[in-house]
């Protein structure tokens, strides 16, 4: 067992973010470099290197992301039950690192690659909720927006750098040396795991030591809380409003007549906007109320989709679309977690955050499939118009759910 004197929450400098949040941010930064360098080349590897059709890639990606969504809930519940969020997060980071070696071991077999991608997504599903729970447990409620802002900024610095690192590796190792990218990605991920194990502190001791152990019945009780129900609804609405960056880039590419080489750059542009906006938006959310900032996110998405319909020069589109997607992430991703943190009891926090993330992910899966179908049946223009209308409706519904804010000490009134 930990001695309470050893593991006491570290002293916080005035105005500074908790050391644990910085440590978690560093782990996320390193891990995102690792995973984004693979994400950047995986489509090219599958479609060009292995001659898989783009549709088959879409199916692999969607099915595995979808099938591991429920693992988030299981992981969140397990972390609360054994009260070891760091251990569950470490298992998630470890799985994703191992998956990079799996990509090499698969040696081009589609099944093997499918398994490796599934393991990678499973790891991501497992680690996200315990990590966010640790952030909320390391931060006083009124500073949560900023803490998540710092974390998501560091996270997106990694996402920004990943594709660039992949390109650097390919330019040194030879442009078809995909395995060199996988090996480098594994080494980077392994280092992220080392940093997690050495520098991130668990917060088991902050919970009342004799409280009743978490049971499925108690976890299910979360859904009886009106505030939790409303936030889960908001998370689902966020998921429904999102059609997937890939579709947006594809639409942008068609409309602006860009060559396919622009694809990774559009993602890099979105990451850049996200990393620049994450901290200021997080701080703003601490000041004006997180629920208001969340609604700005819906607005950003409406603008991002809407400009695809407007007669706007392509140079403007290339700036506006990644910028609005980045703003959407900055205003919703960490902010939703910061909004939910104080509402959820500490001992069920991981389960609760996992519930929100699962709701958002399942809704997103559904909306991206529906968007794909709408595109196929009615053409790109009508599909985007439907997406704009849908996002507007989702934003209004979210505004209704959040009309009185969310109980908790975070809202400055």
């Amino acid at each position: 067992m930990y001695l309470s004197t050893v593991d006491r929450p570290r002293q916080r400098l005035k105005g500074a973010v908790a050391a644990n949040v910085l440590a978690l941010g560093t782990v996320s930064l390193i891990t995102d470099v690792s995973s984004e360098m693979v994400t950047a080349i995986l489509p090219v590897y599958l479609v060009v290197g292995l001659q898989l059709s783009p549709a088959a890639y879409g199916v692999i990606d969607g099915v595995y992301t979808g099938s591991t969504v429920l693992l988030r809930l299981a992981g969140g519940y397990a972390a609360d039950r054994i009260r070891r969020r760091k251990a569950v997060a470490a298992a998630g980071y470890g799985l994703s690192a191992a998956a990079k070696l799996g990509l090499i071991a698969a040696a081009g077999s589609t099944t093997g690659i499918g398994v490796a991608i599934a393991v990678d997504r499973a790891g991501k599903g497992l680690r996200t909720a315990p990590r966010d729970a640790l952030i909320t447990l390391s931060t006083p409620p009124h500073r949560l927006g900023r803490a998540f802002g710092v974390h998501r900024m560091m996270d997106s610095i990694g996402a920004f750098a990943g594709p660039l690192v992949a390109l650097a590796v390919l330019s040194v190792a030879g442009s078809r040396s995909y395995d060199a990218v996988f090996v480098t990605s594994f080494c980077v991920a392994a280092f992220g795991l080392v940093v997690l194990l050495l520098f991130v502190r668990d917060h088991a001791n902050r919970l009342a030591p004799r409280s009743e152990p978490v049971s499925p019945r108690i976890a299910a009780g979360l859904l009886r809380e009106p505030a939790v129900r409303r936030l889960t609804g908001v998370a689902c609405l966020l998921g429904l409003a999102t059609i997937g960056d890939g579709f947006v880039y594809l639409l942008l590419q068609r409309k602006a007549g860009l060559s396919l080489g622009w694809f990774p750059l559009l993602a890099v542009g979105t990451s850049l906007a996200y990393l620049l906006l994450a901290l200021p938006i997080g701080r703003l959310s601490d000041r004006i109320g997180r629920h208001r900032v969340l609604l700005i996110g819906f607005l950003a998405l409406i603008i991002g989709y809407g400009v695809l319909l407007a007669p706007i020069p392509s140079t403007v589109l290339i700036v506006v679309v990644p910028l609005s997607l980045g703003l959407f992430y900055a205003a919703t991703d960490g902010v939703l977690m910061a909004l939910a943190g104080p509402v959820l009891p500490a001992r069920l926090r991981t389960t609760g955050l996992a519930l929100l993330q699962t709701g958002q992910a399942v809704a997103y899966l559904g909306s991206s499939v529906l968007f794909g179908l709408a595109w196929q049946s009615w053409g790109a223009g009508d599909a985007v118009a439907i997406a704009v209308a849908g996002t507007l409706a989702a934003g209004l519904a979210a505004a209704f759910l959040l009309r009185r804010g969310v109980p908790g000490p975070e809202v400055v009134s």
Partner: protein
Amino acid sequence: MRQLTARDRVVLAACAAAVLAATATGYILHARQKAAPATGFTESGTALAAGPAMQALSNGVLSTVSLRDPAGPRVLTSLNCDRAHAAADTVACLTPVDALRGTHLMVLNSKLLPKHDVPLTGFPNRLRVSATGRMVAWTLFIDGHSYNTAGFSTQTGILDTRTGSAVQSLEEFAAFVDGQPHRAADINLWGVTFTDDDNRFYATMSTGGRRYLVAGDFAAKTLRAIAENVECPSLSPDGRRIAFKAAVGGDPANGWRLSVLDLTTMKVTPTAESRSVDDQPLWTDGDTVAYALQRSDGINEIWTARADGTGRPGLLVSGANSPALLSAGDR
């Protein structure tokens, strides 16, 4: 076990970083050594048996096979292609797409010295050099990878190596169906074969769900549909017959029958090859066509069949595709 101090943690992290960085760097440098040099295309020292030879791709590597001894040693070059063809003094190669570079049309002389290098967008599919070695035509997939799925899209272009002028897309040409001008957004063109005058050619044009054989004129920039259900034509040496793949029952979803069209009588003769052939055939002489087939285990093979529909198909070269004839004087 004692609690780690802050210093211990930093030292441990630094050690881990050093080991992992060394591993990654070592692997990258190893991969760099393994990757073939991108310039200076060389041949291995193997000597071929005298007599006629065939150029083909062995696992994507441009190579030469003796037709007297197709199972014998091959001359391998250091040039990687997805598709290759050759005639007279011209060798053409569509290089593979990779993570950093799209495909390129490389035109080389028979000594493999580069003459033209045209960057292209899409996935290599068909490639033809005219008999004189002057004209080069290519087909790339822009959307999709296969002719038997709906919604694929191709782009076909022609390079005149003498003038250096290129038509990036034959869709710019004026198309005629049943003698009437035909304008449609859904036109796709693929599989060019040239006549001896280096101006007229044949190709496949699809529009409105039908696939036509078109006769093209490079100078006049026209395409005229002359027959239906003819794909990937290949003109015989005498210029009177066309070997092609015919969609079974008129539907590419059923696969293709390798067939021969007589341009005088417009009569179609199926060859004895009953397996589905998805390739642009090659006339190895006035009576025989060669074509590539992929076995279920992924190995490519070059087979031949008689153009008059008699006889049985025979295996010519194993472990190869994209065949082209080299005249006896070359290489």
